[in-house]
C-alpha cells in the first residue's frame, strides 16, 4: 500500500474523500434577506421618514419631536424582530434536515505502510488499497484486484435493484458497465473484495452526478410566488393611498412635515406587520403535522407546494410496493389460487384441503435454503429478517405462515443432498429423508423456471394422484403459466419424486457432481408466482389522487409487464382503460392502426423514450391520463419531469438513488425516500418520506391544500382590520377631526391582539372534501385574489371602520364634544398653546386634557377593532359553509385566539393604561360593547353572503363574493 507520508501528500493535493456539500447561502445573507424582504422595506421607509421629521422638528424646537424618534425606533424594532423571528423559524426547519446528513463517519480498512488500518473514509486517497466485505459501503471508486463472491448493489447509482456480481475482469469499455469497478456510496451485498482507489471525493461518479444536481436551478415555490404577489398588492395599495393622501394633504395646505407624518401613518396602517410571521408559523405548524404523518419537510414553503401538485411521478419499488417478494398466486390441480399479499398476513385463506397442496407445500418448505435469523420468534412472521434471496425469502415466509415452524419440518425431513440454483440449469434440487418413520424412501424435491421443470416431468399431480402429463395437461400448464406471467409475476415450478427404496436404500450415498439419481421423469406438482405486491394503503391513496385531480405517473426501472400489473393493481391504470397495445390485441389489428386517442393508458418503455423528441413526449403526457414509464433509467426521470413541467403542471417526484437527484431538484417538489434514499437524494429533495410510502404523499397533499385554504383565511382576517386602521387617517386628514387612532396603537393590533387568532386559523378543518377538488391552477387560483381583497377591504373592513367610528364619536360626545364640534377642529385641537379649548357644553379643556381624551379615543377605537376582529375571526373560519355547519367549537384554538385577543386588549387598556408613552388609557366598561352590534352585523352579513353563494353557485354573487 501507500506510505502514510505519500498518502498525506496526495490528500493535500486532492482534498478529503468526501462530497463537497451544496453551497449553502451564508447565514448573514439569509438574515439580511429577512430584514429587507416583504413589507420590511415599507416599514424601513416609514422609520426613515419618522427620523427625518424628528430631525426637522428638533431643529424647530417642537415639543413632540421625540414622538417621531420613538415611532421610528419602534418601526425599526418591528422589522428587526419579525425578521429575527422568520429567520429563526426557517433555521429551525433547516436544522431538522441537518441532522439527517450528519451520519456516523464511515470507516475503511486500508493498507498503509504495509499494515491494515481502520481509517475514516474521508482520509482515503487515490492509490490506496482497501478491503471490503459484505455489508460495507464502498468508500471510494475502486478498481477490484481480488474478489470472492462479491456482489454490489448499484441501485443508488443506476436504479437496478438486482445485486450485481463483481470480479477482477475488465468486461466493458464503459466504467459503469465493466465488472471490475465498484462505486463510491454503493454497497457490497455479499462476498469480499480488495481494490485500488481510483477516484475520491467529487471526482467519483457519484460526486459528478451530485455536482450535476446542484447545477439544476432551484425555482421559486408556488407559495413564495403567491406571497410575493400578495406583498406587491398590499404594498401597491399602501403606496398609492399614501401618495394620494400626501398630495391631498399638501394641496389642503397641510405642512409638508405633517403630510409626511400622515404618510407614515398610512403606511403603518396598511402594512400587516405580523402577517408574514403568521404565515411562517402556520406553515411550520403544518410541517410539524406532516412530520407526524411521515412527511418531513425541508423547506417550509414546500408544505404548500405539495398541495398544489398536479402530477406525481412515483417510483414503484418500495414506494408503491412493499419492496418484498411475496407469493401472490398458486396453481395446482389445474386451478389458480390467490394468496393474501397484504403486509400483515397471518393466515392464507385459499383452499388447502387438496393432497396436491400437501405435496406442494412440502416442496416449498424443503427445497429452500433461506433461514430466519435466530432470535426473532416474537416478531410477526412478515417482519422477520431472513438470510437468503428475495424469492426464497418469500417462499419461506409463505410456508411459515401456513405450516408453522418451517425449521422443525426441515429437521424432521433431513436433507441428504442438494444442488443450489445456478443460471445454467435454472433449477434447485434437494433430497430428503421423509418424516414418516415407516417410509424409508428418499424424497427428491425440485423448483425452478417452470418450463425447465416441466421438461423434466412425465407425470403431473392432480388431486394428490399422479397422472400422465399429456398434451391437454401440458396446455393447461401453459395457460396458467402465461396467465401468471402476464400479471407481471415471477413464476416458479415445483416437482418431486419419491426415489424407489430398492434402488436407493437408506445407506445410499448421493453425489451431486455425478448426479447419481434421476433428474427427469419427475412428477409436476404446481406453480407458485411471486410479486412485490403493492402496499395495501396505496390503491386507496391513488384513487384519492384521482378524485383530487392529480395524475399519478409511475416511473420504474422494472419490466413493462410487471410495471403495468402493479399499475393496474394500485389503480394507476384503472380497470377499464386500455393501452394502445390492449386495443390492438382486442380488435386484432396492428398497433399502428389504433386510434391513439382511444387509449387512455400508456406504458412507455425506456428504450422508446430514448428515441422520442420532446414534442412526442409532450403528446404522450397530454393525451394519456394514465401513464407508466417502465425500464427507465434515473436520468430519464429528469426528462419526464421536464416534460410534465412543460404542461404547466406542478410536479412532485419521488426518488431514492443518487441518480435521481437532478430530477428531485428539477421537480417542483422532490420527495426523497427516508429509508431507502441515499443522502444525495435527501439533499436534493424538498421533502423526505420517512416511511417511503406513497400514501404518505397523499396525506401530505391534503395538508398542503388545507394550509393554502387556511392561509387565505388568515390573510383575509388580517387584511380586514387594515381598513379600520387606515380610515381614521383618511378621515383625520379630510375632516380634520382629532386623531382617532395612533400609529403605536395600530402596531399593538397588528403585532399584539391579532397574532394568535390569525395563527389559530391554521388549525381550521377543511370545509369540504379538499381531495375532491382539482389542484389549483397556478395562474388563476391566487392566494389573494381580488375578491378576497375587495371583500376584506371594501366590505368587512368598511363595516369595521363604521363600528369603530361610532365608538369614537360616542366617547367624545359623552365627554362633551358632540360630533358637530369635532369637525374641522384639528389645528386648534393640536395647538399646545390653546389651553382653554371650549367643548359643546361650554367647558374648557387644557391641551393635555384633550390629549388624554384623544388617547381614550385611541383606546376605544382599538377596543372596537378588537371586538369586531372577534367576529371577523369567526366568519373567516369558513369561506363557503355556514359557521354552524363547520361547528363553532370544533377548532378550540380559535377560542384560544379570541380569549387571547380580549385578554391582551384588557391588559393594554387597564394594565398599561397609565403608561403615557403607549397612548392607552383605562376605558369605561360599556365602550367595549358599542361595536358589538356591528360585530353581529358582520357575522350575519357574512352568513348571508355564504348562504347566497351556496344557493346560487355560478351566479354574479358567487363570482364576486367567493374568495
Amino acid at each position, binding site marked *: 500500500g501507500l506510505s502514510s507520508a505519500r498518502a498525506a501528500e496526495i490528500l493535500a493535493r486532492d482534498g478529503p474523500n468526501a462530497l463537497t456539500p451544496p453551497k449553502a447561502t451564508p447565514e448573514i445573507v439569509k438574515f439580511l434577506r429577512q430584514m429587507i424582504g416583504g413589507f420590511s422595506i415599507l416599514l424601513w421607509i416609514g422609520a426613515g421618514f419618522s427620523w427625518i421629521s424628528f430631525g426637522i422638528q428638533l431643529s424647530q424646537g417642537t415639543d413632540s419631536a421625540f414622538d417621531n424618534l420613538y415611532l421610528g425606533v419602534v418601526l425599526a424594532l418591528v422589522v428587526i424582530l419579525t425578521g429575527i423571528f422568520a429567520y429563526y423559524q426557517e433555521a429551525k426547519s433547516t436544522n431538522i434536515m441537518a441532522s439527517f446528513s450528519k451520519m456516523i463517519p464511515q470507516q475503511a480498512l486500508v493498507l498503509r505502510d504495509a499494515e491494515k488500518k481502520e481509517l475514516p473514509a474521508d482520509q482515503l486517497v487515490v492509490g490506496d488499497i482497501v478491503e471490503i466485505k459484505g455489508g460495507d459501503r464502498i468508500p471510494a471508486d475502486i478498481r477490484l484486484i481480488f474478489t470472492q463472491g462479491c456482489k454490489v448493489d448499484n441501485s443508488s447509482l443506476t436504479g437496478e435493484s438486482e445485486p450485481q456480481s463483481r470480479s477482477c475482469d475488465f468486461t466493458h469499455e464503459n466504467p459503469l458497465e465493466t465488472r471490475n469497478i465498484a462505486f463510491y456510496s454503493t454497497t457490497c451485498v455479499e462476498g469480499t473484495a480488495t481494490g485500488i482507489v481510483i477516484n475520491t471525493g467529487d471526482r467519483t461518479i457519484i460526486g459528478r452526478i451530485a455536482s450535476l444536481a446542484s447545477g439544476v436551478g432551484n425555482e421559486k415555490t408556488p407559495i413564495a410566488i403567491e406571497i410575493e404577489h400578495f406583498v406587491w398588492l398590499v404594498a401597491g395599495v399602501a403606496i398609492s393611498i399614501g401618495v394620494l393622501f400626501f398630495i391631498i394633504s399638501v394641496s389642503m395646505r397641510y405642512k409638508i412635515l405633517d403630510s409626511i407624518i400622515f404618510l407614515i401613518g398610512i403606511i403603518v396602517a396598511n402594512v400587516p406587520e405580523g402577517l408574514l410571521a403568521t404565515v411562517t408559523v402556520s406553515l411550520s405548524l403544518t410541517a410539524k403535522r406532516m412530520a407526524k404523518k411521515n412527511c418531513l419537510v425541508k423547506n417550509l414553503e414546500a408544505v404548500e407546494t405539495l398541495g398544489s401538485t398536479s402530477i406525481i411521478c412515483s417510483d414503484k419499488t418500495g414506494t408503491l410496493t412493499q419492496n418484498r417478494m411475496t407469493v401472490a398466486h398458486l396453481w395446482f390441480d389445474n386451478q389458480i389460487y390467490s394468496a393474501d399479499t397484504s403486509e400483515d398476513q397471518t393466515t392464507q385463506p385459499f383452499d388447502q384441503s387438496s393432497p396436491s397442496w400437501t405435496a406442494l407445500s412440502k416442496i416449498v418448505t424443503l427445497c429452500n435454503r433461506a433461514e430466519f435469523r435466530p432470535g426473532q420468534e416474537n416478531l410477526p412472521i412478515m417482519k422477520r429478517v431472513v438470510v437468503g434471496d428475495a424469492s426464497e425469502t418469500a417462499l419461506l415466509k409463505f410456508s411459515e405462515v401456513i405450516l408453522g415452524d418451517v425449521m422443525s419440518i426441515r429437521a424432521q425431513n433431513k436433507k441428504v443432498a442438494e444442488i443450489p440454483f445456478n443460471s445454467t440449469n435454472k433449477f434447485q434440487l434437494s433430497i430428503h429423508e421423509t418424516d414418516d418413520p415407516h417410509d424409508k424412501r428418499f424424497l427428491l424435491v425440485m423448483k425452478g423456471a417452470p418450463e425447465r421443470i416441466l421438461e423434466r416431468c412425465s407425470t403431473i399431480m392432480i388431486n394428490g394422484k399422479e397422472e400422465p402429463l399429456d398434451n391437454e395437461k401440458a396446455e393447461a400448464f401453459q395457460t396458467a403459466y402465461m396467465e401468471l406471467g402476464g400479471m407481471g409475476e415471477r413464476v416458479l415450478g415445483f416437482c418431486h419424486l419419491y426415489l424407489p427404496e430398492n434402488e436407493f436404500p437408506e445407506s445410499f450415498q448421493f453425489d451431486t457432481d455425478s448426479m447419481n439419481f434421476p433428474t427427469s421423469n419427475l412428477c409436476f406438482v404446481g406453480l407458485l408466482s411471486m410479486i412485490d405486491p403493492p402496499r395495501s394503503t396505496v390503491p386507496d391513496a391513488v384513487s384519492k389522487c384521482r378524485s383530487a385531480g392529480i395524475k399519478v405517473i409511475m416511473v420504474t426501472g422494472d419490466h413493462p409487464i410487471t410495471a403495468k400489473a402493479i399499475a393496474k393493481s394500485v389503480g394507476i391504470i384503472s380497470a377499464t382503460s386500455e393501452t394502445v397495445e390492449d386495443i390492438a390485441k382486442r380488435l386484432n389489428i396492428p398497433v399502428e392502426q389504433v386510434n391513439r386517442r382511444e387509449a387512455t393508458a400508456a406504458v412507455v418503455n425506456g428504450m422508446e423514450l430514448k428515441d422520442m423528441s420532446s414534442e412526442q413526449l409532450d403528446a404522450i403526457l397530454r393525451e394519456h391520463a394514465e401513464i407508466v414509464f417502465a425500464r427507465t433509467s434515473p436520468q430519464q426521470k429528469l426528462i419526464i419531469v421536464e416534460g410534465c413541467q412543460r404542461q404547466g403542471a406542478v410536479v412532485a417526484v419521488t426518488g431514492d438513488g443518487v441518480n435521481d437527484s437532478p430530477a428531485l431538484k428539477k421537480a417542483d417538489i422532490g420527495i426523497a425516500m427516508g429509508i431507502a434514499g441515499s443522502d444525495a437524494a435527501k439533499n436534493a429533495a424538498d421533502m423526505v418520506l420517512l416511511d417511503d410510502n406513497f400514501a404518505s404523499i397523499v396525506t401530505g397533499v391534503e395538508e398542503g391544500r388545507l394550509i393554502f385554504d387556511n392561509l387565505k383565511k388568515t390573510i383575509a382576517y388580517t387584511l380586514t382590520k387594515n381598513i379600520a386602521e387606515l380610515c381614521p387617517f383618511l378621515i383625520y386628514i379630510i375632516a380634520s377631526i382629532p386623531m382617532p387612532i395612533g400609529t403605536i396603537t395600530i402596531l399593538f393590533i397588528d403585532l399584539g391582539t391579532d397574532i394568535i387568532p390569525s395563527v389559530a386559523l391554521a388549525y381550521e378543518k377543511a370545509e369540504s372534501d379538499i381531495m375532491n377538488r382539482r389542484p389549483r391552477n397556478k395562474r388563476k387560483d391566487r392566494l389573494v385574489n381580488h375578491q378576497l381583497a375587495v371583500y376584506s377591504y*371594501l366590505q368587512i373592513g368598511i*363595516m369595521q371602520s363604521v363600528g369603530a367610528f361610532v365608538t369614537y364619536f360616542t366617547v367624545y*360626545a359623552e*365627554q*362633551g364634544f*358632540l360630533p358637530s364640534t369635532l369637525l374641522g377642529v384639528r389645528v386648534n385641537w393640536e395647538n399646545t*398653546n390653546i389651553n382653554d379649548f371650549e367643548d359643546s357644553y361650554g*367647558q374648557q379643556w387644557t391641551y393635555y*386634557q384633550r390629549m388624554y381624551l384623544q388617547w*381614550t379615543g385611541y383606546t376605544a377605537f382599538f377596543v372596537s377593532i378588537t371586538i369586531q376582529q372577534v367576529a371577523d375571526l369567526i366568519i373567516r373560519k369558513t369561506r363557503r359553509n355556514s359557521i354552524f355547519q363547520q361547528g363553532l367549537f370544533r377548532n378550540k384554538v380559535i377560542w384560544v385566539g379570541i380569549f387571547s385577543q380580549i385578554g391582551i386588549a384588557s391588559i393594554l387598556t387597564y394594565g398599561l393604561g397609565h403608561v403615557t408613552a403607549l397612548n392607552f388609557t383605562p376605558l369605561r366598561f360599556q365602550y367595549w360593547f358599542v361595536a358589538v352590534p356591528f360585530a353581529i352585523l358582520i357575522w350575519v352579513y357574512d352568513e348571508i353572503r355564504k348562504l347566497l353563494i351556496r344557493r346560487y353557485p355560478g351566479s354574479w354573487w358567487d363570482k364576486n363574493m367567493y374568495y
Partner: protein
Amino acid sequence: GLILLFYLVFYGFLAALFTFTMWVMLQTLSSDIPKYRDRISSPGLMISPKPDTALEFYFNRSDSQSYSEYVTTLQNFLESYNDSKQSQNIDCTRGKIFDQSDAAVKKACRFNITELGQCSGKEDKNFGYSKGTPCVLVKMNRVIGLKPEGEPHIQCTPKEEGMVNINYFPPNGAMDLMYFPYYGKSLHAHYLQPLVAVQLAITPNGTKEEIAIECKILGSPNLKNQDDRDKFLGRIAFKVLMSE
C-alpha cells in the same frame, strides 16, 4: 354596473346605519351637561391676552404699536363684562357657593368690572402697558359642576426676585365661590367666569430682562396645581420682556 349598484346599496345601508346609531347615541345625551366630566376633574388656568406665539409678551412701553394687540384683546375680552351686558345678572352672596341645582333657570352672578381696579380698563385704556405696569387677566377654565373648596385665589411668583412687583385685583387674587358651580352653556347662558387681574409693576431692574412668572391657584384642596404632565392644570407660566 351591477357592482356599482351593489356598492351604492351597501354603502347607502352602512351610511344609514351609521347615522341611525349616531342618532340613537345622541338621543341618550343631555343637551345641558355632558354625561361624563372625569377627564376635566380639575380646571386649567389661562391668561388673557394670549400672545400668538408661545406665552411670551414682548413689547416696548413707549411704542403703542407694540402692545396694541394686547390692549385690543383685553378690551374685547372685557366687553362681555360690561355692565350693560350684565343687566340680567344678579348680585350673589359673596363667599358662598351659589347652588341652583333646583332652579329651572340658572342665574348668573354679576362680576363687577371695577373689581379689576387699575386693570379694568376704565382708568387706563392701555391696561398699564404704557406705564410699565402691564395687566394680565388670569381665568380658570369653566368646568360644569365644579365647586371649589376653601378660598381659592391666584398667586403669581416671578422666577427671580427684584424685577417685578405683583398686584392682584381683586385683592389677594381671590376668586369668589359665588361664581361656582357652572351649569353649562345652555342652562347658564349669561355665566361669566371670575377673573383675577395681575398687575406686573416692572422695576427698572427688570426692564429689558425676560421675566418668567408662574401663576397658580392656591387655597383650595380640590383644585390641583401640580401635575407633572399637564403644565396648565391649576397653573400657568408666561414670560414678559419689556423694553423702553
